[in-house]
């Protein structure tokens, strides 16, 4: 009788600290050589197969054979922006001239959430879905998730690329998948109690919302079967340490996250040390610029992240502006050689306001709010324009424990304003609002309410 394999992975592979040690610890010189080879092939591919890139490269007089070094690539291949893709797709739906493969190769269609009104269409070939899913697994593995764990997906199965790719990753890892599609928050909690998954996949704010609803039901999720929570889609436990504390306390679990861009890749899995994310250098090439001057910034300086994906053969993305502000480091105590972004995304070039001469970033304010006693997870940052200046106002719902005491609302607001002033050297108006009055979201929580005239803001769909 033939023996039956009893494990998805052999014991030697299972004991590895890394999903792929050879690639995650590859020396920089070897990574550089590999990137150059892949970038040259990518420019040739995009030029030959994508009418969009052929036009763009021809317009700047660059031919694929002109790219002989990484510096050539960074300096000579023009930057691209999401707005270009949206514009071309609107002219010629669904994908326009950005497509680099015949339609019959498109295995999966996704879209961005379209919060500014125009979703970006994202085509994936079958190979692209393999690559995209793989990017999640580096983070799963680093956090300690193994075959034998089971994933609960607390979201509806729409066109959102983030969670489809999380699912592709769970399949690659060889774990049981449980879909929570179609259930409301209470239904998700009941399903978790009944089916006993060990990993929760959700947006970070939805994890906290579930914990809040569970408490109302008399359920302590810290005693549930969940051992790990893993997040994407909005700033999570790596970007916001206060959020990590809240999630880990509420769920009694280890929280992780990755940084992804829907149209590009789940490109930066969380570092196991919890203080940043590592760029998956097998799938993307990353460098950073000063968004004002366009000049490349040095390691350790904050700059806008520019990404090139090797993982999108259906709709290639070359020197793609992410508008994410990051601080890059080249080494990490965890042993990975892949570039590290300390604290994940530190802010957005389009969600930075200058208040009385001080640059104020969304995440900096969110980090402070998360630690103020009495401020619930339901808050928003309102941007307005007054007297030629950007103004940011914080509106928050008080926690349930002080919901009946308006004097405490005001005291909490003053405390929050004082902490922001002390840390960021700027005075913001902080206003309490009625509990339950701010919108709730299952997917991306909308923290920013931008009421500035259009000419003073970007209209990226993030």
């Amino acid at each position, binding site marked *: 009788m033939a023996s039956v394999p009893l494990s998805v992975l052999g014991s030697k592979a299972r004991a590895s600290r890394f999903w792929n040690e050879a690639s995650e610890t590859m020396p920089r010189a*070897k990574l550089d050589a*590999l990137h150059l*080879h*892949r970038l040259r092939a990518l420019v040739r591919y995009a030029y030959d197969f994508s009418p969009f890139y052929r036009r763009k490269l021809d317009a700047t007089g660059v031919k694929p054979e002109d790219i002989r070094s990484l510096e050539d690539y960074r300096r000579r291949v023009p930057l691209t922006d999401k707005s270009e893709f949206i514009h071309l797709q609107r002219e010629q739906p669904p994908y326009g001239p950005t497509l680099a493969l015949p339609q019959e190769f498109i295995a999966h269609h996704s879209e961005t959430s379209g919060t500014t009104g125009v979703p970006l269409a994202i085509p994936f070939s079958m*190979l692209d879905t393999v*690559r995209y899913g*793989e990017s999640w697994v580096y983070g799963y593995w680093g956090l300690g998730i193994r075959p034998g764990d089971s994933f609960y997906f607390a979201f509806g199965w729409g066109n959102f690329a983030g969670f489809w790719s999380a699912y592709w990753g769970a399949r690659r890892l060889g774990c049981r998948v449980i879909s929570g599609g179609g259930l409301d928050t209470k239904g998700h909690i009941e399903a978790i109690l009944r089916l006993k998954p060990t990993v929760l996949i959700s947006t970070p704010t939805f994890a906290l919302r579930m914990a809040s609803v569970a408490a109302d039901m008399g359920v302590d999720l810290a005693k549930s079967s969940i051992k790990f929570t893993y997040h994407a889609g909005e700033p999570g436990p790596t970007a916001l340490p206060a959020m990590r504390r809240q999630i880990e306390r509420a769920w009694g679990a280890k929280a992780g996250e990755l940084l992804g861009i829907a149209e590009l890749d789940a490109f930066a899995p969380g570092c196991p040390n919890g203080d940043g994310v590592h760029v998956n250098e*097998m799938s993307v090439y990353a460098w950073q610029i000063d968004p004002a001057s366009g000049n490349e910034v040095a390691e350790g300086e904050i700059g806008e992240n520019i990404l090139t994906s*090797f993982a999108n053969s259906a709709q290639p993305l070359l020197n793609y502006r992410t508008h994410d502000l990051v601080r890059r480091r080249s080494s990490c105590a965890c042993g990975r050689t892949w570039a590290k972004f300390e604290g994940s995304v530190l802010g957005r070039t389009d969600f930075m306001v200058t208040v009385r001469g001080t640059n104020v970033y969304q995440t900096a304010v969110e980090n402070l709010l998360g630690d103020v006693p009495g401020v619930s997870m339901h808050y928003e940052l309102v941007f307005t324009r007054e007297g030629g200046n950007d103004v940011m106002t914080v509106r928050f719902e008080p926690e349930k424990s002080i919901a009946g005491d308006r004097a405490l609302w005001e005291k909490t607001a003053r405390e929050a304003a004082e902490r922001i002033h002390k840390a960021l050297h700027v005075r913001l108006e902080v206003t309490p609002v009625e509990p339950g009055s701010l919108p709730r979201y299952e997917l991306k929580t909308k923290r920013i309410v931008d009421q500035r005239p259009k000419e003073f803001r970007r209209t990226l769909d993030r």
Partner: protein
Amino acid sequence: MESEERVARIWQARKLVIAAMSGCDSPQIEAILRNADTELHWALWNLGEAVSLRPELDYGESA
């Protein structure tokens, strides 16, 4: 097994899969073999090998 030997064996496996795919009259079997080659190409990619961006682009060299 050393990494070089593993890489060499994966290249061999791709040659066998591509040969089996040649002239295949069963859509099911061709689709399965195509998936197998996609995975083998992906393994080489993640071992740092200089493979093409898509597996089909290698066929001319390795088939």
